[in-house]
């Protein structure tokens, strides 16, 4: 069972890796913002599978924090982008 779960963790990690490369290579900033969400689901899945495979329940807590802070980081991304927009428009309007 352990090796199956490890294999699954490796597979999901590979998928997350491809997804991250796809998301981070695109030029648009909105695509970059998806990176945190991608890790929020993929990273949590990898950690839960690792916790099952190595039978180390505390790893589940890492997954919990990862989920929480991925959401937090995504909020920071969106806020920062909207901030930039406001500053640019203020600079354009106010001279």
């Amino acid at each position, binding site marked *: 069972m352990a*090796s199956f779960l*490890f*294999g699954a*963790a*490796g597979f999901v*990690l*590979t998928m997350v*890796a491809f997804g*991250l*490369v796809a998301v*981070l290579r695109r030029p648009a*900033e909105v695509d*970059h*913002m998806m*990176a*945190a969400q991608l*890790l929020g689901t993929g*990273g949590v899945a*990898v*950690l839960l599978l*690792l916790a099952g495979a190595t039978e*180390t*329940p*505390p*790893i589940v*807590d*890492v997954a*919990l*924090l*990862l989920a*929480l*802070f*991925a*959401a*937090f*980081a995504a*909020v*920071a*991304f*969106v*806020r*920062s*982008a*909207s*901030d*930039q927009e406001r*500053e*640019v428009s203020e*600079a354009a309007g106010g001279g």
Partner: protein
Amino acid sequence: MTILSVFDIGLVVLILGIGASTIAVREAFAAVIAFVVYGLLLSIAWVRLSAVDVALTEAAIGGGMTGMLMLGAVARLRLAKGNDARVSLPTRLSVGVLCALIAAGLATAILVPPEVIPTLAPAVMENLAQSGLGNPVAGVLFVYRALDTLLEKVVLILALLGVWSLAPDSVWGGIPGLRVYARPDSTLTFLAQLLPPLGIVVAIYMCWVGAKEPGGAFQGGTVLAAMWLLVMIAGLENVPSISQRWLRLLLVVGPVIFLAIGLAGMVLANAFLAYPPGYAKPLIVAVEIALTLSIGVALGLLAAGPPERVQQQ
């Protein structure tokens, strides 16, 4: 070649790639996003190194809080890009060679380990039972190297004083310049109402479980800080001015209780920061609870930055 090592190789390649891209990409925004992703991935690497406590800290601080801090700066610095000349190619090449040499030196140190690997693990495990704790890392943090932990709290407060002292005189004691995402009807408001109650439960859980399993005051405090920031960013709660008494009390309550118990140890247990036998665990838990609050407030205020305006009245 087992599945396990394939997993580790994949993880290392991913971490190296994302790490390199934080240096290589042109846009600061993209670099910071890559750094956040890097921090979250690194916590998986720490899990693989059997350091779950570190993984928790890295996910919370390395990923979430540092990213939040830097993204705030990116937005402000974007307009004011100094036209710094890029370093010339020969310089870059020579710097590259030197950095490669340093990395190679570190790698050699990894590849040629000492004959007898020094370890303090047996010493920690022998004495852990006396403290009543089940988590060896918490044992090290609060018993074996309690002075480090105490001084680290002092460092946090000193750093915060440093950040605050960067404010102009006219706004000293004012309100930190945290940018608020000013859209009251947005879904962010909903998230800021939904997530903090969950986050507070998680923080209490982290603090509580820290005595027995990985977790503790650092992780719990960081979760509290993140939730506080989220509520302030969404505009549900005003950013407090730094001269508020409750704020300053919360900031020092952890170190003060820690210090008081440490000084009491000089009388009751014959050494600074020693715990009287039999009372170690309750004392440590008390210190952890107070520290969680103080760390939460300190990290939140560090991320909020120096004061930028005074309270209007």
